């Protein structure tokens, strides 16, 4: 009788790295499913749990044995195994013996075109417990971690040292060994509140045991306990709290104990809220803001188990000391005007070839001004001022203490030193976006400085020979480029990218032409990749990435082409367009020189029709182009299809009379100009909807 069982594997560890713990939660069930499937063991459900001190796999409804396997071995051909009368020969008997089956159990089957004798035997599945004993050590070893470590004398590596392994299949302990670790049916409770060890009878008893001994296994429950605690203990009902902070706090404890701590009010009066918030987070506290966005004078600590009073006051004191330090930095920093910190930048040598950080901001000042002009902004003086001052805060004590506050500190100090609001905003916002999905600058002036900052940095890295195509990105160059493109795309900034790159290169006296080419290639590659991430197919990307001059236009063309290609008429239209492109390429191959088009040379009805059709729509086309309505533009072009088809069906383009021939080619070339504005259609793949076959446009041309 087959039975379904439950299985628990608990890997008990020292405090795991947060990232590894979260990763294992996903990876462990996947690896387990893969192993079970490979071993023919059925199961209903795989679940995983984790705390800082354990990673747990829970398999529900796992079969008690492997599925049976039918094994078929082919033997001698039928005419050798059996004589004319159908009696088994010595060959058949020998084969049956070797396969440990009776002669009567041999069957005849076709193998290819030949009939051969086969021995079929049933291999009975092994008990699941035996399989688990064998595969669990490998399962443990195959988990992956960001930075695996070793400990003691063991050769095993893991996220953090493994201290115990519990493995229970229903009531049965699955005993196995990994290096010097033996599995057992023992688990441990909370490190201090109820350490254990505890003997566990079965999976149900396992969950029970942990709960009784101050371990809340399910991170969802830990998070919801914290949420509830915030409402009740900190009286924050209905108030929004950063969910990531709740998650993190819950992932750092086995038994959340919420403490509501207070912030000394004097600091709220003196220090900027962002500084206080950073200090609270540094101590793993959760800060709160009221409905208006003002910081409240309290923060929550999620302790691991104990709620003793002394804990709360200690966390408050630790924060107090940090804030006292910050206050000292703040007051020291403000003793000199913000612009004076530029002097400090002169001392920060960035690189021999690139000079100091001050040299860098001087370049940014020039480039940001140029970008501002390109964007049609008026207040160029402010942009330049913002660029010049935007790195000054790197020299302040506050940013040295809280690097995550760079930008904010500069903006704040700037304002206090009498810089105007726009300059201060530029300083604060020019770092945005710091990561994908981060907010963007609100002011175009800040965008100009942000773009200049990134271009100067990327160009610098290229000059000192950093390989931008390398697989890793230790200098974050790709992140810089992606941020730049994100700003340009989302804020629809009209910038001529190649010109911009040229201007950037010109700010570095040592830069050569190859640096410029490297920059162009790099940006082309980044745009290509970001479009791919947006789901733009490769053929469309190849068709539009010829001209980099307007990145916003590139993206819109790509999206329009993608949508258009999905319409029912697209492939037929594309074929019609191809006939135009095709014959022009042929003419080019034949070295026919195109002449200017002359209307009076048209004689056939179909060519007159094509021209008048084209002439009638050219105004609309131009207008749609100007309005950048590329989808409408494509639809309009499609209207030409019947005229193009009829032209090719009724008119011989390559006729002997060169005057007529050249005039017809000139007509087609006029039309082709309208296509090529949008994309190089020869790169687009035609998807034939009827047959599902796809043909490459460019191969049509060659034919």
């Amino acid at each position, binding site marked *: 009788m087959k039975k379904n069982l439950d299985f628990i594997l608990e890997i008990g560890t020292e*405090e795991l790295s947060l990232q590894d713990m979260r990763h294992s939660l996903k990876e462990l069930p996947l690896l387990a499913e893969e192993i079970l499937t490979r071993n023919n063991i059925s199961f209903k459900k795989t679940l995983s749990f984790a705390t800082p001190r354990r990673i747990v796999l829970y398999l529900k409804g796992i079969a008690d044995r492997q599925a049976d396997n039918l094994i078929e071995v082919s033997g001698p051909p039928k005419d050798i195994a059996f004589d004319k009368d159908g009696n088994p020969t010595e060959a058949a008997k020998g084969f049956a013996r070797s396969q440990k089956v009776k002669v009567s159990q041999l069957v005849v089957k076709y193998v290819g075109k030949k009939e051969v004798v086969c021995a079929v035997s049933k291999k009975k599945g092994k008990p699941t417990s035996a399989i688990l004993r064998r595969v669990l050590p490998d399962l443990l070893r195959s988990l992956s971690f960001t930075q695996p470590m070793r400990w003691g004398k063991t050769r095993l590596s893991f996220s953090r040292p493994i201290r115990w392994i519990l493995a229970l299949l229903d009531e049965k302990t699955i005993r196995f060994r990994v290096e010097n670790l033996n599995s057992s049916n023992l688990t441990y409770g909370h*490190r201090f509140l109820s350490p254990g060890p505890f003997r566990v009878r079965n999976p149900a008893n396992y969950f029970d045991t942990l709960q009784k001994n101050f371990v809340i296994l399910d991170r969802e429950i830990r998070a919801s306990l914290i949420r509830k605690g915030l409402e009740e203990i900190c009286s924050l009902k209905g108030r929004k709290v950063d969910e990531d902070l709740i998650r993190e706090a819950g992932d750092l404890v086995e038994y959340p104990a919420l403490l509501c701590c207070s912030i000394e009010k004097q600091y709220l009066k003196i220090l900027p809220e962002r500084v206080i918030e950073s200090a609270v987070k540094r101590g793993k506290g959760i800060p709160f803001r009221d409905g208006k966005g003002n910081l409240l004078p309290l923060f929550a600590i999620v302790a691991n*188990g104990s709620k003793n009073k002394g804990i709360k006051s200690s966390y408050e004191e630790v924060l107090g000391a940090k804030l006292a330090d910050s206050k000292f930095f703040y007051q020291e920093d403000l003793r000199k005007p913000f612009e004076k910190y530029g002097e400090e930048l002169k001392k920060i040598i960035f690189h021999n070839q690139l000079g100091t950080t001050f040299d860098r901001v001087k370049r940014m000042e020039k480039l940001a001004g140029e970008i501002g002009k390109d964007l049609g902004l008026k207040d160029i003086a402010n942009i330049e001022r913002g660029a010049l001052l935007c790195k000054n805060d790197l020299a302040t004590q506050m940013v040295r203490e809280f690097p995550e506050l760079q930008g904010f500190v500069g903006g704040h100090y700037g304002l206090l030193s009498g810089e105007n609001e726009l300059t201060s905003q530029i300083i604060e916002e020019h770092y945005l976006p710091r990561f994908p999905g981060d907010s963007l600058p609100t002011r175009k002036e800040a965008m100009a400085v942000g773009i200049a900052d990134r271009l100067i940095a990327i160009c610098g890295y290229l000059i000192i020979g950093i390989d931008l195509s390398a697989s890793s990105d230790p200098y974050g160059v790709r992140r810089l480029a992606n941020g730049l493109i994100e700003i340009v795309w989302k804020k629809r900034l009209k910038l001529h990218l190649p010109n911009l790159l040229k201007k950037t290169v010109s700010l570095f006296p040592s830069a050569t032409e190859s640096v410029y080419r490297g920059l162009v290639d790099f940006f082309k590659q980044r745009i290509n990749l970001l479009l791919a991430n947006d789901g733009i197919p490769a053929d469309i990307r190849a068709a539009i990435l010829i001209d980099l001059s307007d990145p916003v236009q590139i993206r819109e063309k790509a999206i329009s082409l993608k949508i258009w290609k999905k319409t029912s008429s697209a492939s037929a239209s594309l074929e019609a367009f191809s006939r135009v492109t095709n014959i022009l390429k042929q003419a080019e191959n034949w070295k026919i020189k195109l002449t200017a088009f002359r209307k009076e040379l048209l004689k056939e009805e179909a060519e007159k029709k094509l021209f008048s059709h084209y002439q009638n729509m050219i105004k609309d086309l131009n207008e749609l182009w100007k309005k950048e309505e590329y989808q409408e533009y494509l639809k309009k072009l499609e209207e030409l299809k019947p005229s193009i088809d009829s032209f090719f069906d009724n008119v011989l383009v390559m006729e002997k009379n060169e005057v007529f021939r050249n005039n017809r080619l000139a007509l087609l070339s006029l039309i082709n100009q309208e296509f090529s504005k949008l994309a190089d259609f020869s790169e687009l793949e035609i998807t034939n909807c009827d047959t599902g076959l796809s043909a490459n446009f460019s191969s049509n041309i060659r034919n």
Partner: protein
Amino acid sequence: MTFQEIRRRLEDFWVKKGCLLWHPYGTEVGAGTLNPATFFKVLGPEPWRVVYLEPSKRPTDGRYGDNPLRTYEHFQLQVILKPSPENAQDLYCKSLEVLGIKLVEHDLRFMEDNWSAPTLGAWGIGWEVWLDGLEITQFTYLQQAGGIDLSPVSVELTYGLERIATYIQGVKNLFDLEWTKGITYGDLRRKEEKEFSQYSFKTADIKLLLELFDRYEAEAGRLLKEKLIFPAYDYVLKCSHTFNLLEARGAISVSERLRFIERVRKLAKQCALLYLERRGK
């Protein structure tokens, strides 16, 4: 409990756990790890257990004796357990109990924090130990020293004695710590702090220090050629401290910094390799 009592109790605890009671090193170091009793002893297969105090000098941390928690010099209590025992965390927790800390009533946390000392080519995986939010110890499974993979792995416990003492004595400023009855930490050390801060930030002769760095480096290299590992290592330590002084003095640029670190690391690595090669000879 006085500052000196805390130190004695921790030393006693670890001596009872089989540690040799060692002493601070005789030249300036930034951390207990630099003491040869750690740097060399964690190399190779021989077991080793040691506890010692290490006055650690970090010029950039100088605050003229004005900051309640940061100083030019602080006292580390360093413990090495090689190979790292299975119950390393439990032993550590018990050591806090001898200081009268009942862990059931506190929030003791092992917070992810991997440690590295680039000048020594040493790094490890581990935690900052937080006692009710206060960092009191660095707990590290050392993975490499001198750029060499360690096997077996040692565990290194570095107690920040001032931090623990402020917690136990309930004072906010470490200069108010009672070193022994009637004498405070400040009585003994404030003047020294002020002078060393002034020296590190303002008075140190940059030209001389740069010259010294070069000469120390050359001497370490020469001694390595003579296979005099320990004297060579002393000059590596001198390089390291001189570099720290230059940094506090603001005499080193961002890109130069990496080159200085690389120069010291290279020497430290040679010392480690030579030590391994001549171990047991």
